[in-house]
């Protein structure tokens, strides 16, 4: 029997899972970034720390890649940025806009429905008999 190359085995397991996780994270990055701002304004580094700490260290993105995503959300009107000066450096701090908050609630609601469906399917239980 020819092994299915799409099924990960041994050493490739971890790499495959990491790629799958990165892809899944990419699809939810906007919602996750919005969620980090729900409790109040943060600057880029603090957003990155909130993502890492909030995920128990699982989502530890390269810090430099957070900024372009924040700029895109700002261009979309989901967050708003403002400049300040801290220790002689220019700092841009972001806060959720009303539209961003609405989008976060919608993303959260969609995720709960999606996760509930996946959990229901993955949990061990007897499947209905088919004819």
């Amino acid at each position: 029997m020819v092994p299915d190359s799409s099924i990960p085995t041994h050493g490739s397991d971890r790499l495959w899972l990491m790629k799958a996780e990165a892809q899944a994270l990419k699809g939810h990055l906007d919602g996750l970034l919005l969620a980090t701002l729900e409790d109040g304004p943060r600057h880029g580094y603090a957003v990155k720390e909130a993502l890492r700490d909030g995920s128990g260290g699982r989502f530890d993105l390269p810090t430099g890649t957070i900024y372009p995503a924040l700029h895109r959300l700002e261009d979309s009107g989901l967050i708003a940025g403002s400049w300040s000066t801290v220790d002689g450096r220019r700092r841009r701090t972001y806060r959720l806009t009303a539209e961003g908050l609405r989008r976060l609630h919608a993303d959260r609601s969609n995720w709960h429905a999606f996760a509930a469906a996946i959990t229901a399917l993955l949990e061990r239980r007897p499947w209905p008999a088919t004819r």
Partner: protein
Amino acid sequence: MASHPLIDSYLAGLATRLPADSVDELADGLIETWQHHLARGLTPTAAARTAIAEFGTPHRIVDEFVAQAPGRRTARLLLATGPVVGGCWGASLIAGKVWTWPIQPLLAAAYALALLAVVLTLLAAGTTRHSYRRTRLGTIGALTLVVLDAAMITAVAVLTPLFAWPMAVAIPASLARIGLTIQALPKPRTG
């Protein structure tokens, strides 16, 4: 607080490829990361190396900025919708017998050349993966296309001797494109 030569060199590299505001923001985050590692007890050089590793390679950061640049996104949107709007205008001009309109051939040629230049500019901006400067061409191309759309609508309103039905689709399509383009233009990061 002073930075470290490794961090200064890293930021100087980014400054040649990204807008000044973005580099200021990256500098703030990188120096904060460095200070965090200094507070953990690392030496200044080890802290700088760790902070830079956490930030990602300059190549990756620039590519991420390019991928999400507003000029590139606008260029791709206009390239995707261009054939539809162009097709509507092509049908309108044929149905409206454009060859009978009182337009100087030189002016018509200049319009065609400007349109070609816009397409090439949008292609350059929409296909780049590593150059932030090229993404800015998307904004220039988009603004020029707004002018060309407005010129075409004006020409139809003023010069056309007969109204052809495809114009009823082409004019709203161009007006919608003008509105979408203006909305998609990059906004200054003030505030």
